[in-house]
């Protein structure tokens, strides 16, 4: 193999106390597709954003053609031929394709030449797009093509794709793969950030896997003749250590049952279709899937925050149609949302005040229930701090000053005090350290003694540690429900997450 086009040496980046990247070494070669794998939060996107000049590294060097270079802005990186197609496209929606491209490459070409150059680049790489269309009129696939054309017109040698297929339809994915193949044969270097194994096996020449900010493996894919199973294992690090005692709990009555539940995703990503499952008191039912497979919309509909389109939902013995449920609002469900910083809590309010967010009914007092019982709120807050070992000075501390783990415990404690029949936890340990994760796991296990628990997560380790039954969601559909105690079946979860049903 020839010398690397670009090399990273000892790259580190910290966000506050968290190491997003630690001592990363990476070589990229021309004419090859390099897949960068890892779970959410493993540091893939951060690493590539550094390479593309959007973030600056705290330590380490970037070596381009044997010379040390520093990229302190995306423009500078592009000068060195490195460009990135972000998950959120950097396109101005109300402007046309030609205008967007002129904005970026206009200085290089005259205004008249831009149109000509667009057509030529588009033709050369098979990237059909109408220059006169406005961006908001384009499909996601077309927008992505505009981004690729943009990089090519700027003579990018290294093209980084951040989860390029997450917003695409299957035919668009195929088209993208053709383009990437073309780019490779033209001698470009491609970096593919992804957690979809299919793509890796289809496209990649080299593969790197990141876990918790570190690079655990980086080598050509042929080196190990890697199979899907091996990849899946490497990615999630299937060293599941059960550090939580899982007490036997008697399974009680059905708390929640969905039948043919379908609806739009109100939060981006695909819709969810024909979802059917039930949760009983005393069990943890997990829905696992790669982010963006419809689980966000599903949870928000179950929690009654958005309205599903079809199907029925049975809660505590009463059956509602999708519409009725949305309107009734699920006041009886405890819900720990994924976004603990902006949905689950209010950063500028005290812990005590945060206790009121979903529990106002319990704090009504005086004047026909118009007043707020602040004493009770403060007392509940203090009790939660004691009971869950939340590290703070007092209940008057602002939620924004808490660490992620402590904040999550506050939210968890609040939702627990609602004594709901159903408890939903959405990505409850994302971004938390090990000890906080274990604390939260313990709480969830305790919780199932009094309620049915719905755990929605992308973390395989979490699912295997906690669940009684596991539902795998892919592309909006619940592919299979697996008994967590059946170890043969459990081995298939990783593959099912990638949509492989063998």
């Amino acid at each position, binding site marked *: 193999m020839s010398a690397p086009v670009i090399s990273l040496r000892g790259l580190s980046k910290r966000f*506050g106390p968290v190491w997003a990247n630690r001592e990363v070494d990476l070589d990229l070669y021309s004419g090859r597709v390099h897949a960068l794998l890892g779970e959410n939060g493993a540091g893939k996107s951060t690493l590539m954003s550094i390479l593309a000049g959007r973030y600056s590294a705290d330590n380490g060097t970037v070596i381009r053609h044997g010379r040390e270079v520093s990229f302190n802005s995306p423009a500078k990186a592009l000068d060195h031929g490195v460009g990135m197609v972000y998950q959120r496209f950097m396109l101005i929606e109300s402007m046309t394709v030609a205008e967007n491209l002129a904005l970026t490459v206009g200085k290089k070409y005259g205004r008249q030449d831009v149109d000509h150059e667009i057509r030529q680049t588009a033709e050369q790489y098979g990237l059909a797009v109408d220059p006169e269309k406005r961006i908001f009129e384009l499909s996601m696939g077309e927008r992505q093509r505009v981004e690729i054309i943009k990089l090519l017109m700027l003579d990018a040698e290294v093209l980084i794709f951040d989860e390029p297929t997450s917003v695409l339809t299957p035919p668009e994915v195929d088209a993208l793969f053709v383009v990437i193949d073309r780019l490779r044969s033209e001698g470009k270097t491609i970096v593919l950030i992804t957690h979809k194994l299919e793509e890796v096996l289809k496209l990649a020449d080299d593969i790197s896997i990141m876990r918790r900010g570190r690079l655990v493996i980086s080598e050509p894919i042929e080196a190990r003749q890697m199979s899907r199973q091996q990849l899946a294992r490497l990615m999630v690090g299937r060293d599941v250590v059960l550090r939580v005692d899982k007490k036997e709990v008697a399974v009680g009555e059905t708390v929640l049952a969905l039948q043919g539940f379908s609806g739009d995703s109100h939060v981006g990503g695909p819709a969810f279709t024909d979802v059917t499952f039930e949760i009983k008191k005393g069990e943890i039912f997990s829905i696992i899937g790669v982010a963006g497979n419809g689980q966000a919309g599903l949870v928000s509909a179950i929690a*009654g*925050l958005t309205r599903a389109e079809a199907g029925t939902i049975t809660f505590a013995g009463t059956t509602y149609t999708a519409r009725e449920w949305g309107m009734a*609002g699920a*006041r009886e469900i405890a*819900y720990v*949302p994924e*976004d603990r910083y*902006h*949905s*689950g*809590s*209010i*950063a*500028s*309010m005290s812990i005590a*005040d945060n206790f*009121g*967010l*979903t529990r*106002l009914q319990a*704090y*009504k007092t005086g004047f026909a*229930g*118009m*007043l*707020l019982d*602040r004493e009770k709120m403060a007392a509940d807050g203090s009790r939660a701090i004691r009971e869950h070992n939340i590290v703070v000075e007092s209940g008057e501390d*602002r939620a*924004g*000053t808490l660490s992620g783990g402590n904040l999550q415990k506050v939210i968890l404690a609040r939702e627990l005090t609602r004594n709901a029949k159903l408890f939903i936890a959405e990505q409850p340990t994302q971004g938390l350290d090990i000890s906080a994760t274990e604390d939260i796991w313990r709480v969830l296990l305790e919780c199932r003694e009094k309620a049915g628990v719905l755990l929605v997560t992308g973390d395989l380790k979490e699912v295997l540690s906690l669940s009684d039954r596991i539902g795998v969601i892919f592309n909006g559909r619940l592919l299979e429900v697996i008994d967590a105690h059946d170890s043969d079946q459990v081995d298939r979860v990783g593959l099912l997450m990638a949509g492989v049903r063998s």
Partner: protein
Amino acid sequence: MIRVEKRKEPLRYQGAVAASSAVVIAFLVGCVIFAGLGVHPLTAYLAMGKGVFSSVDAFSEVLVKATPLIFTGLAVATAASMMLWNIGAEGQLVWGGICAAGTALFLFPGMDAWLVIPLVLAASALGGLVWSLIPALLKAKLKVNEILTTLLLNYVAIIYMEHLFYGPWRDPAGFGFPGTAQIPEAAHLVRFAGTRISLGFPLALLCAVFLFYLLKKSIWGYQVLVIGKEQRAARYAGFNVNGKILTVMALSGAFAGMAGMVEVCGIHYRLQTGLAVGYGYDGIIVAWLAGLNPLAVPITAILLGALFVGGEQLQSVLGLPSSISLILEGALLFGLFAGQALGGYTVTISGRSKVAS
């Protein structure tokens, strides 16, 4: 290299820091202007201070000016606690004045004070409330930007008021003077001990206390504050955001409407040009200087009132235009921004430790 970063945690006393830096900066701007005019800044500020504090009469004028400012400040603060902009307190004040004058003059002209005063007050609050509901409904139903609608409606209200007192409501015995007839004595607000301070002042203080407790102690207030701070959390908790837009703006408009009432029934005793002099806009400064804290609103309103009275004093003693108070008012607000910006950032000088500003 100096790097300015956004502070993750706001300073503990950020409001106080910002407000005091506002005062300092306004003071310095004043110094420059006075010096530029060849007047010793100390002489000028002394003249202003003397005008404000020299006598009970003088200081009472400060409270007279502060009274409508407290109301409009509360109006702006109410809306802003939910991150709504009520730039329309001026128009709501005008409608409060129109309704107060109309009620006193035409609806209940012969009634006793104990009956007519509450009626007039209610009418003015209702007038402001209804006027503020127009932008509120447009915002809640059609997502029309309330900054612009509240602002535009000010002009509509003022033009209509002028039409009334130049036209159909003009005092027939007024020798063509633009203004309505005087309202009946029963509708005059009681004044205190020979000053022009009326019942409106304690009423304004009462409203400030009321708003403070409403926001702090009621379920409604809690929801309003949550919506103002974090819309996503409010949606997660299932709060009715659109409903709150209506009630918040209604309360805001009611406060502003009462400002019109205390002006008409406490000062002018008629509807005339002097009613719309910008108290609605000043209320924005009062509210933000107070850090949107209802209990601080009377303080900043009195500060601004003192600035106005001091400015007038400057004109009569030193012959300097009283519009100096406008300049200082603008400088106060810019000073507030500077203070907020300083408090909101940390300045790092590379290689050294962090310098908190």
